[in-house]
């Protein structure tokens, strides 16, 4: 029978099918961090059980970590306690841990691919919804809860029903200044924040084929923001070139064997999806959000739609615009910005800093804007320095912080103050996400760069050479 890419990977990992229930799914790679793992380890301890395959789990500290003075003790006692718990738990159970200060430390969804942990055909989970990022490599990757973290630690399996399948095809040529983030925000604006709930998405078409791995990761990362469990893209030469020679990627004869298998990982021609959507890539513009969920996005030159044009109740819509301090029919262009945040598992990779630098080169940071540039990992930080990007940034009046999740969810000190507006390259514009009362406008690194040099919402195409 014809199968989709998703079927092939899922079916190869089903240990047992339960009649009228979920599948028992084997997990190849498990990523953990300090926030969603401590209670899972507590569970292991209470049950008196060990970790079944410690070598399949990888730990990093990212959600809570400061992005300055990482060589000094962490000031917040609760954060410090969680970091210590991760260190002790991983030591006790024999799990590899790249903690704060380690040269491989960084955001969990940045370091997985960087180290070749993320591979085509694998099942990958983490107690974090943006685990969908790893689907860029043709892996099935999704976020799980802490109970499931405990399941994976103790049995390397979880129990879930197989999701339905959706394919989103986009062909055509992307316009000037349109980045993978815009493609993702465009899709979510069409589907709404719940439009793909219950589905696993495959992205197909030349727009995705022509993207770099960094771009594909940005798209797959945001799959969860339309409710999808995850998103994936069939592995191709771009994928293989990225993986080759990384620390945990197969070597020698194992590489050849892996390649032979990976090349089979594509949707059969006559395979059937539960839902198919097709968009034209040339219609996508640089995007920006105006509301309090990622589905509330528009082209940057558009006006804020009225409640009637938006899916969801009027009360919900009014609450959202009230929180943002915006009104129906207003343009987004020209709105004053207080903060700019570039970073996160969505847009904290080298390509994002290249894009940001390409626009700010030779310009100056706007005086009344605070700009936080947070690389996704030490590896990204190092690349920024080696490629000369740091020089461009410094010359334009910007500074670079140290790696971590930072203002994306504001668990550390990187909080946007109440009432302030931030253009953020992160993934969620929920109320209070970037700090209590903070107002988030999600956008690409180019839109962020345009805001950083003008102090307002600006179409980056007008500033690009």
């Amino acid at each position, binding site marked *: 029978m014809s199968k989709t890419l998703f079927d092939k990977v899922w079916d190869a990992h089903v240990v047992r099918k339960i009649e009228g*229930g979920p599948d028992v799914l084997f997990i190849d790679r498990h990523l953990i961090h300090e926030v969603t793992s401590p209670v899972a380890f507590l569970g292991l301890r209470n049950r008196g059980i060990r970790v079944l395959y410690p070598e399949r789990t990888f730990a990093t500290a990212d959600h809570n970590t400061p992005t300055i003075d990482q060589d000094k003790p962490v000031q917040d006692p609760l954060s410090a306690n969680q970091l210590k718990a991760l260190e002790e738990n991983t030591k006790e159970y024999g799990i590899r841990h790249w903690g704060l200060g380690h040269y491989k430390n960084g955001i969990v969804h940045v370091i997985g691919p960087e180290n070749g942990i993320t591979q085509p055909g694998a099942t990958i989970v983490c107690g974090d919804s943006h685990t969908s990022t790893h689907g860029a490599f043709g892996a099935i990757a999704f976020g799980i809860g802490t109970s499931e973290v405990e399941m994976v630690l103790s049995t390397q399996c979880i129990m879930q029903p197989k999701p339905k399948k959706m394919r989103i095809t986009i062909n055509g040529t992307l316009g000037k200044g349109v980045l993978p983030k815009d493609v993702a925000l465009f899709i979510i604006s069409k589907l709404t924040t719940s439009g793909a709930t219950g589905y696993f998405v495959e992205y197909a078409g030349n727009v995705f084929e022509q993207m770099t791995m960094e771009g594909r990761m940005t798209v797959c990362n945001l799959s969860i923001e339309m409710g999808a469990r995850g998103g994936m893209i069939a592995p191709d030469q771009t994928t293989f070139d990225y993986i080759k020679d990384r620390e945990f990627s197969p070597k020698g004869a194992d590489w050849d064997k892996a390649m032979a298998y990976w090349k089979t990982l594509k949707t059969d021609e006559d395979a059937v999806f539960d839902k198919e959507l097709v968009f034209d890539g040339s219609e996508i513009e640089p995007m920006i959000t105006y509301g309090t969920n990622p589905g509330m996005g528009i082209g940057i030159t558009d006006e804020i739609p009225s409640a009637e044009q938006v899916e969801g109740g009027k009360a919900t819509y009014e609450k959202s615009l009230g929180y943002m301090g915006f009104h129906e029919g207003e343009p987004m262009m020209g709105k004053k910005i207080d903060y700019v945040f570039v970073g996160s598992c969505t847009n904290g990779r080298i390509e994002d800093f290249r894009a940001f630098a390409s626009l700010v080169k030779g310009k100056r940071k706007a005086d009344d804007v605070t700009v936080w540039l947070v690389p996704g990992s030490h590896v990204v930080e190092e690349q920024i320095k080696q490629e000369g990007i740091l020089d461009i940034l410094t010359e334009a009046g910007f500074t670079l912080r140290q790696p971590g999740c930072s203002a994306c969810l504001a668990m550390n000190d990187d909080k946007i103050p109440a009432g302030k507006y931030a253009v953020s390259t992160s993934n969620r514009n929920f109320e209070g996400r970037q700090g209590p009362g903070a107002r988030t406008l999600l956008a690409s690194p180019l839109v962020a760069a345009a805001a950083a040099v003008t102090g307002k919402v600006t179409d980056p195409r007008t500033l690009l050479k």
Partner: protein
Amino acid sequence: MAYDSFNILKSTAVPLPIENVDTDQIIPARFLKATERVGFGDNLFRDWRYNPDNTPKADFVLNDPTYRGKILVGGKNFGSGSSREHAAWAIYDYGFRCVISSFFADIFRNNCLNIGVLPVQVSADFLERIFAEIYADPNTELEVNLPEQTVTLLATGEKESFDINSYKKGNMMNGFDDIDYLLNMKSDIEEFSKTLPL
């Protein structure tokens, strides 16, 4: 972690007719710093429930003594966003055992089922009826019957059935969790791991 079994729940309900309630609202990230599963109920809906100076916001439903009960009724797409199980813990710890909505986000639904909160999905029309009845009479009781898979407005007898897979239903009715099941098939898992393509 074991939880109390769930069979038939009769209770008044708390209405929250907002759509797309995300898990950052249910429990903001700054309250995720614990290393044990205690005290999350205090911070349930923290920023909707309290002012920055920690005084209660009078207009939020959890601060309104008119509404109480073990059932939370939310708008469409309840629990979207972050995978934090802390959201389900906060709901359980506050005292809710059931959330009714016309649509749930996937991960949140799973998390609820794993810790003993029953997510009950009803039609948009029935959800409207439930909200209307609660607002008409805050003392109105609902019956959530898991064995029968039905929700009933007891005052009027209006009833709707809901879906749940038989495996999870059995777990909820017995207070079992998935880890017990998985630990019992560990030798199968170890055998299976040898057959993986890579």
